[in-house]
């Protein structure tokens, strides 16, 4: 792993992402829409603890969905360039981790601001909320990478992310990757949860590691270059190959294009 190459990848995809202004606006607006639509319903329906919690979790999951999709687009958006870049000397891990770094920087800019915004709207533990949303973003990056590795096309990838995150918006279970960060977010809302903070953090980190490892393995398998045979051995093989006779109809078609002395001298027939 070469640090210069890794940072070059991150910088270039950072530039690429920063110029996708509409995508960035949607990325920032989506969790806000999730959150404030919930707040509006809350004002209509009353302010029970469950209502407060639902709004909090839906906003946080909105940010997770947005980060997952960003990761999906950053990894998949340059897939035509992947193999030319490998031929240019990059390692697959450098390309993938450089892009992951780009999305993590984006997440680091968005999630604290979103946590502070929620804190101004609701009675929450800011530190716990920031930790929960931040870890949710990290898990979401890994989710986006895995989705990109599983399905090379953006539309199918977005549907996978909608499914994975959407299920966790309705029911969070311990076997789900966002459960740990969800526990922290619920705890930040003042509701008793079953896990301790270290357990929730560990869950999020382990989920990230598992998703990322699966994503890296699948992605590297998809883009890897084929190994070449040694050239010296191939030179020997040329002399012993069986060659069927010349087909006249093809000879007529290509003969004028090839200098006669070259074609005769270079072709070995038996």
């Amino acid at each position, binding site marked *: 792993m070469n640090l210069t190459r890794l940072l070059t990848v991150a910088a270039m995809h950072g530039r690429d992402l920063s110029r996708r202004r509409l995508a960035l606006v949607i990325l920032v607006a989506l969790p806000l829409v999730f959150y404030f639509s919930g707040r509006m319903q809350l004002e209509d329906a009353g302010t029970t603890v469950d209502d407060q919690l639902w709004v909090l979790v839906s906003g946080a999951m909105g940010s997770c969905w947005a980060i997952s999709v960003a990761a999906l687009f950053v990894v998949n958006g340059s897939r035509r360039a992947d193999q030319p870049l490998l031929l240019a000397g990059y390692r697959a891990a450098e390309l993938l981790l450089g892009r992951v770094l780009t999305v993590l920087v984006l997440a680091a800019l968005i999630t604290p601001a979103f946590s502070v915004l929620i804190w101004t709207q609701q009675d929450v533990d800011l530190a716990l909320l920031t930790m929960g949303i931040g870890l949710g973003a990290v898990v979401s990056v890994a989710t986006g990478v895995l989705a990109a590795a599983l399905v090379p096309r953006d539309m199918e990838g977005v549907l996978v992310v909608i499914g994975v995150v959407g299920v966790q918006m309705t029911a969070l279970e311990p076997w789900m990757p966002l459960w740990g960060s969800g526990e922290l977010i619920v705890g930040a809302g003042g509701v008793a949860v079953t896990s301790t903070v270290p357990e929730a953090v560990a869950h999020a980190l382990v989920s990230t590691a598992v998703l990322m490892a699966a994503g890296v393995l699948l992605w590297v398998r998809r883009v890897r270059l084929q190994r070449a*045979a040694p050239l010296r051995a191939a030179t020997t093989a*040329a002399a012993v190959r069986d060659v069927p006779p010349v087909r006249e109809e093809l000879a007529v*078609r290509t003969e004028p294009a*090839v200098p006669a002395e070259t074609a005769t001298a270079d072709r070995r027939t038996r």
Partner: protein
Amino acid sequence: MDQPIALSVRGVSKSFKRRRALDDVSFDVRQGEALAVIGENGAGKTTLLRICAGVLAADRGTVARPGRLAYCPQEAGLIDHLTADEHLRYVGAGRGLTAAEARARGGALLEWLRYPAGETATVRELSTGTRQKVNLALALMDGGALILLDEPYQGFDRGTYENFWEHVGTWRDQGAAVVVVTHMLAELHRVTHVLELRVGGGWALDGGRGVAA
């Protein structure tokens, strides 16, 4: 004395589902030679070049090639929101070049290709031909003993197109082996060998199935 072999393809076959694209294709290309790969649409030209470059696996057969090569794919491997200059630095870093070295080397190639001087637009804003010039310049940045080009002149203006074919001769003189996928049969006098691929997997080298070696 024969030049060293720069690309050796032996018994390469490839099918997509039930459709056979390549059937037991074998040929060699030596340094200083140019091979044109011709054939109808769907005959497997791009598939063969992708296998030669190592970006696609063959079902059977082997390919021997140098560790570093120049490969210009038919579909430009560009990142939409980066400029040509940023592409040069991105690819250059992979090859261990500093930003200044990448700009110098890539800039000379772009100048040769008549890329508009001072162009700062991102590649998505460029015309097809201008994007293809960036694609070709990136592929050629490393030079190398083997140059694989898949219809690299698509969208080129007349002057750049003619310039390209003249350079095929220059690269050969410099000792490179060049493989060009082309539909331009009028340019075949510029190459040393012609490989014709046929829909269904058939092929013929220099008019007859064989091994140029």
